[in-house]
């Protein structure tokens, strides 16, 4: 697994000192810091996991994902402060699809040319038929270089998928390629998928 490497030092990766100037004659100084030699060295955050005899329910209300049990809200992830601004160059799309059983589709990437086809916000919700029972899963796939990307990544999706990043007007930022997504319905029932995207 590639480890994040930032700022200062030598060794480990085989990179030593500043990189000499290339053919352009440009000079720059790059320093690296090894943050971890192995994945075991990366700081691991500790969570206290609560296990219960009776299941809890996650619901969305009052701008938060809340973990509730009977009348009590036991925990909340407050999203009141979340805001994705629409700038002068921004656009957005709101699409709804009915994905047939055992099929996939590339969602319409729309027009996000001002940010090099990148989107900074995606919010998708899947609606499953009651007949689906426990089979309420889809796959989402993403190719950073577009839908023909040989390094396409595959992930599971239940009810929600929300992704975000930092778009940049007129350039490629640190965001998501709108042309790189496709969704697969592996179940035997139609799934409705609503997707909102914006740059």
């Amino acid at each position: 697994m590639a480890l994040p490497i930032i700022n200062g030092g030598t060794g480990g990766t085989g990179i030593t000192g500043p990189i000499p100037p290339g053919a352009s004659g440009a000079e720059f100084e790059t320093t690296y810091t090894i943050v971890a030699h192995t994945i075991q060295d990366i700081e691991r955050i500790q969570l206290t996991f609560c296990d219960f005899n009776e299941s809890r329910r996650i619901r969305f209300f009052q701008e938060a994902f809340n973990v509730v049990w009977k009348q009590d809200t036991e925990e909340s992830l407050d999203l009141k402060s979340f805001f994705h601004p629409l700038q002068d160059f921004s656009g957005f799309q709101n699409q709804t699809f009915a994905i047939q059983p055992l099929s996939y589709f590339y969602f319409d990437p729309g027009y996000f040319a001002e940010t090099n086809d990148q989107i900074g916000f995606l919010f998708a919700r899947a609606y499953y038929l009651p007949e689906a029972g426990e089979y309420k899963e889809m796959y989402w796939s993403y190719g950073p270089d577009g839908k023909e990307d040989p390094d396409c990544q595959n992930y599971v999706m239940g009810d929600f998928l929300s992704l975000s990043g930092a778009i940049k007007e007129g350039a490629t930022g640190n965001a998501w390629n709108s042309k790189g997504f496709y969704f697969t319905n592996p179940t035997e029932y139609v799934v409705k998928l609503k997707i909102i995207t914006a740059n």
Partner: protein
Amino acid sequence: MATAPKPCPRDANDGFLFDRDALVLEEGEKSIEMMDLSDYFADVSSYAKTRYKLKGGSSFILAQSDMGDADGYVSFIAFKTIFPEGTTTVNKYLNWTYNSNTNPMGEIMILTGKRVDSEVEDTIGWNLSYGGGITGGIIIENPHTDLVAEIEILIAR
């Protein structure tokens, strides 16, 4: 060939946000409900929440031996990132790595889905197992050296 649409000047307050039980779009004086979330629910057997200040240039891994099911899979992970006031839009991102793939993460990320075992493909899901040779986990990296990001995470299975 059609020309590109002309961008319209935007109000500084135009954008997406959550209002009560919905994701809404505010445009000028209008507030348009884009997605009603009031009917959403998911039953979970366990959960955990944490808050973490990620210093500039540092990383952490979200992985724990008792976090998921017997094989370390969880079905709900929600991240909220708070960047310092004054952080420009182009710098409001972190990086996350899962299964050797690195992607950006802005102020929100929600990953859901139970593990899916397939006879023809590898098991797919969100594996946060740890221990005895790590097989899962999500690495969160702050690539900015000059800002501290505060992250809240809610995980459930």
